[in-house]
């Protein structure tokens, strides 16, 4: 149900004024607040202890050249950095963060998606999955990252390595990612099966299934 389709007029909360609006950066999507220096953690499973030397990254499915990289292999690829904001569906946003790793474009250039590939399922070592339109992970929009603010990515935030898709809600940025599977049709991932939106654009407030 769309947020603007109510059975009755949207109620103003009696006595609620909220935080001061002045100085609120217009970089905050609707319904989000600036978490400042905090970085809340949201995880559905036991935090795994991944050994980088045992981790691999695979791009397969509808590609011409399925490929698997070791920890050393991905570090040998041309590096790429993201500087900007991230937005979590639990309503916090974190501004001006820096992640370092490799662009997903670099992996896709090697794996060469087939023309019929239109969606991606990101798989984590834990069994966590999340689905994305292919267009949302190519064209400089997505990264495989292992550094946060110049230091190794902390394990509770997906370290040693996670997907980063910062223009979508952060559950799309799968922690402990190990595989991108290219598909010709969309298939719901973990949170998407559990009520969350298939695309998750924070500027459109696509939080839950049924949002526009």
């Amino acid at each position, binding site marked *: 149900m769309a947020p603007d389709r109510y059975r009755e007029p949207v*109620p103003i909360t009696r006595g609620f004024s*909220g935080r001061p609006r002045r100085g609120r950066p217009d970089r905050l999507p609707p319904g989000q*607040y600036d978490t400042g220096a905090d970085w809340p953690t949201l995880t559905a499973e036991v*935090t795994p202890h991944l050994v980088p030397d045992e981790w691999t990254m695979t791009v397969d499915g509808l590609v011409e050249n399925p490929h698997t990289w070791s920890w050393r292999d991905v570090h040998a690829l041309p590096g790429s950095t993201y500087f900007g904001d991230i937005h979590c569906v639990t*309503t916090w946003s974190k501004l001006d963060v820096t992640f370092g790793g490799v662009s997903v474009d670099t992996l896709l250039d090697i794996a060469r998606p087939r023309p019929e590939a239109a969606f991606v399922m990101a798989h984590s070592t834990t069994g966590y*999955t999340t689905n994305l339109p292919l267009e949302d992970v190519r064209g400089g929009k997505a990264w495989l990252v292992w550094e946060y603010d110049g230091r190794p990515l902390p394990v509770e935030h997906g370290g040693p390595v996670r997907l980063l898709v910062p223009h979508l809600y952060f559950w799309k940025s799968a922690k402990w990612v190990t595989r991108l599977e290219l598909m010709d049709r969309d298939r719901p991932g973990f949170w998407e099966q*559990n009520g969350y939106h298939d695309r998750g654009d924070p500027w459109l407030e696509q939080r839950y299934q049924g949002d526009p």
Partner: protein
Amino acid sequence: MTGELVDTRAPAGGWTTGTLVEMDRNDRLVRLRLDVPDRVDHLPGQHYVLRLRAEDGYTASRSYSVASDPGDPLLELMVECLPGGEVSGFLHDEARPGDVFELRGPIGGWFTWSGDVPVVCFGGGTGVVPFVSMLRHARRIGAERLIRVCAVGRSLASLPYSEELRAAGAFVALTRENLDGRVAAPPYLDELEPLVAGAERAYVCGSVGFASYATRLLGEAGVRADAIRVEQFGATG
């Protein structure tokens, strides 16, 4: 790959409104009982989003676990008042019966229990709230033998639903005060083991630090990592 994350097909509801009917509070917690007409029945463990709206259209929303069971005519939320909390502070200090709130739910299909399989639940602080819903549900459907709860709090006064939890047979471990001859301490492995015996699934709910401690202890008690479902929260006001 440690496990298969299954599709649980839990109920989901869209935006609606609820009227605050009953409430009580202490210095840190506020319990809200809301009348939500035509609500979608939730599964124990699911949550709702509560949204506050200012006159200029500004909104602030937060997620809260449901404490009531699906058979309860009202929807019950327990909110911890966080320092400077925009939403929790308002609910604690300003809300009163008759107020109408925007609500969305139920949400979440992973951290749920319908009363079907034997489970062990391990909650810290307000992390016990979804387990209160599970215990109430178990009692209503006669499935008490399928659920065991370990609740951890600093003191009996600060632990939400402490009396109800103890009356329902939960094991309560206090870390800052003694209780019935038990010296203040986090739960020990030998205290957890009898609760874990026979459980097919474990639920952990609490702060990030608590979740880390609890999943490790469950592992030591023999619970497989892929049988543990975690819901952890940071302070989000």
